[in-house]
């Protein structure tokens, strides 16, 4: 059955992509653009050359994959954490603060320290909604979303006052020191070690969820909270807290990786809504950790190719945001469509 389910998931994803291409084509034609040129430049900008693939697509994919993992962890366990965006920023704030103040230590000490502080900050940012859910029974959808706004405005404050760059002109922090930055792994491109971290996380989480008893209990909670409480004799509040903390720390870590790997500084709009795009990444992957690696790269390619699309085809880069939204809608639609198609052959009795 397992193999069968995997094929269905893959088919759903492919159908969704096809649907997206179809809808996008229609929208482009209506808008008076050439679909062919658009897709061509999108592809060229994301996969066309070594630099565009490693330096643009994969670099963009890193935060999407890591945050996508954070979302997957939460959704798989039945926790609707929509607050990855805020947790990402919390991680980025902690990461840049440690990065600026760590002092002169070797990379192998200061970079992990940045990662650690970013993870802890992300986890703490998720802790408040977690406690509100477990202690007061407040749904996490609303609380996590609201925490996003707090984080976004906190960044605005931080980059203008406490951590503003030395000259006090621009709303961003100073660049962190060389020793705190991640090394590049493909010479001549911007692809940094963060990608390797992302891949390790994918493998680690996949193992954790399928082979450890904690991971299994989290999955079970996602399947049925009551059954996990009654038949698994598990403490649901405890599992919920674990989920929130794990999910938040991953999103926070993504913030740390972004600071240490690409931006080297904190500024407003560091994330163009990755916390939300990551939801699409996770859903397109059917909440499968391995698949998140690929859907993350796919969305990375979309965002990476947006620049080229604007230059070559003259289409505003914001179109990509529309395409991303279409992908999400298509996933949801094809999922339903597929389940309906399969239903008559399902077993009953």
């Amino acid at each position, binding site marked *: 059955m397992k193999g069968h389910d995997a094929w269905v998931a893959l088919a759903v994803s492919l159908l969704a992509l096809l649907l997206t291409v179809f809808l996008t084509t229609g929208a482009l034609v209506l808008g008076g653009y050439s679909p062919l040129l658009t897709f061509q430049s999108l592809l060229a900008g994301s996969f066309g050359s070594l630099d565009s693939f490693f330096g643009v697509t994969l670099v963009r994919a890193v935060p999407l994959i890591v945050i996508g993992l954070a979302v997957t962890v939460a959704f798989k366990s039945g926790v609707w954490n929509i607050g990855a965006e805020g947790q990402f920023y919390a991680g980025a704030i902690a990461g840049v603060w440690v990065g600026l103040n760590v002092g002169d230590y070797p990379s192998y000490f200061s970079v992990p320290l940045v990662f650690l502080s970013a993870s802890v900050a992300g986890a703490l940012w998720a802790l408040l909604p977690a406690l509100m859910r477990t202690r007061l029974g407040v749904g996490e959808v609303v609380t996590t979303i609201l925490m996003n706004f707090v984080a976004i405005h906190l960044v605005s404050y931080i980059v203008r006052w406490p951590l503003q760059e030395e000259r006090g002109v621009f709303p961003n922090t100073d660049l962190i020191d060389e020793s705190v930055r991640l090394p590049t792994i493909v010479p001549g491109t911007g692809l940094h070690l963060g990608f390797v971290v992302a891949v390790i996380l994918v493998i680690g989480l996949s193992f954790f969820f399928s082979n*450890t008893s904690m991971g299994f209990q989290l999955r079970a909670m996602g*399947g049925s909270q009551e*059954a996990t409480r009654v038949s*698994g004799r598990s403490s649901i509040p405890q599992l919920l807290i674990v989920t929130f903390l794990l999910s938040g720390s991953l999103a926070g870590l993504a913030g740390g990786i972004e600071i240490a790997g690409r931006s080297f500084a904190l500024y407003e709009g560091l994330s163009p809504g990755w916390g939300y795009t990551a939801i699409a990444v996770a859903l397109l992957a059917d909440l499968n950790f391995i698949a998140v690696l690929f859907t993350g790269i796919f969305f990375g390619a979309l965002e990476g190719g947006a620049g080229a699309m604007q230059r070559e085809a003259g289409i505003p880069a914001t179109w990509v945001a529309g395409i991303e939204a279409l992908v999400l809608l298509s996933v949801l639609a094809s999922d339903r469509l597929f389940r309906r198609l399969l239903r008559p052959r399902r077993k009953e009795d």
Partner: protein
Amino acid sequence: MERVSKNFGRKTALNNVGFTSFPGEIHSLIGENGAGKTTLMKVLSGLVVPDRGNIRFKGKEASILTPSDARKEGVGMVHQESLLIPAHTVLENLCLGNRFGSKGNVLPYRKVRIKLEELRDKTGLWMKEDKLIEDLSIGERQKVGILKLLLRDPEILIFDEPTSILAPQEVADLMSLFRRLSRDGKTVIFITHKLNEVIEISDRITVLKQGQVVCRTIPEETDVKKLSKVMIGEEVGANLANSGPVGATVAKLTSVKALGVLGEKKLMDVNLVVRRGEMVGIAGVEGNGQKELAEILSGLRRPDGGTVQLPREIGFIPDDRGGEALIGSFGISENVALGLVKDARFRWGPAMLWGKIEHYVRELITRYGIIATNHQQKVAELSGGNQQKVVLARELKRSQDLLIARNPTQGLDVKATSFFYKQMMQLLGRDFQRDGTEQQAGIVLISSDLEEILMFADEIYVLYNGGLLGVNKCKASKEFIGRLMLAGESGRVMSVKGDGCHEGP
């Protein structure tokens, strides 16, 4: 119905089944779990489209592809689980899906009220129409379900295991309703596992086995023993020891209280002692504190007052199979693993030993006769009885000290039930094949099936309105306990003191 066949994947659910029923008869349909009873009736009511075969009503060929086709032909089904909206009133639920010619978006309240009164005069069935469904007992909900069906004035009424959740008095009421319906010329098709009910009420009996009709008979020509032989070739409750040596106290509740979400009293001053080798039976109509008592006894919940002593290894068979016992989207293995997450034998540090677990699950599947394609099949795809077997297989294994079972045999056929009883006897240490060195467990059986409790329990209590009433087993009759269970519902308050044997009438 003629030569109806249906395959699900490679599994044959129905194989050339013929089924005929006449107006004004009560026709019982019996068979083991997964014998195809429910599937056959789903074909008749349009929920399942058969691969082959045809259906005739009054001699005319009918094509029934959807539930609304069946409705037009006058077929209606009362399902095992009620399909009512808990937050709505009885009247609102009755209006749902019944238009009665009213136009637009207006609900036909007035018409339904009139119809209800007609029905009351005709069948004696009545429910307070402004009560919320969530405030009703399971038996009352079933009545609403029946009313909803009767409003459509069907010719053929199918009841899918209606009696498994009812108290004795409620069963008797249902039986007399069946008789009235059949007098009115309706056809009643009655799916059940309880053979004595079948003998009592049916005009005709059809027995299904592995998707085929193996026997058509009438009650005058058969009895419970013969029927169970035909179904599986075994008798229920045969060779079971009724008592055995009793050991030390394994669980003890002292003046235990439990409160609901809104602070309402769910359990009041409950005292209970369970000893090793002893089975305590707690009878009662659902909703009198069973859930709270069971959760406290199984250590899932702390009481809001009083003290609790519990052992380490407790098995718990919850009442709500789909909600609390199993995860439908998970396979059999993973559902069994739910009971093993804290078991050191199946873990290596934080890791689960899936290989070992799967080996173990395959063993259980064979031992418990669970019908499934393999150990990874999702439990949502299994039949109700097979799902229950998965629960039993998991929980019996963890019951080394204590087993808490709520309606454990719901949906089980005769064979699986008697297998389960044997397992319980083994837990109690009454298994003759063993040398007696085995540790004994205590069992608390919380059930609305009074027969089951009377058959096995050493101590009997009735849970009514959050209070536990002791019953003297030797003196109490089935009828007395039955009335005690329903004391509140019928408005008669029994004078119960001490062991509850000082009963007047």
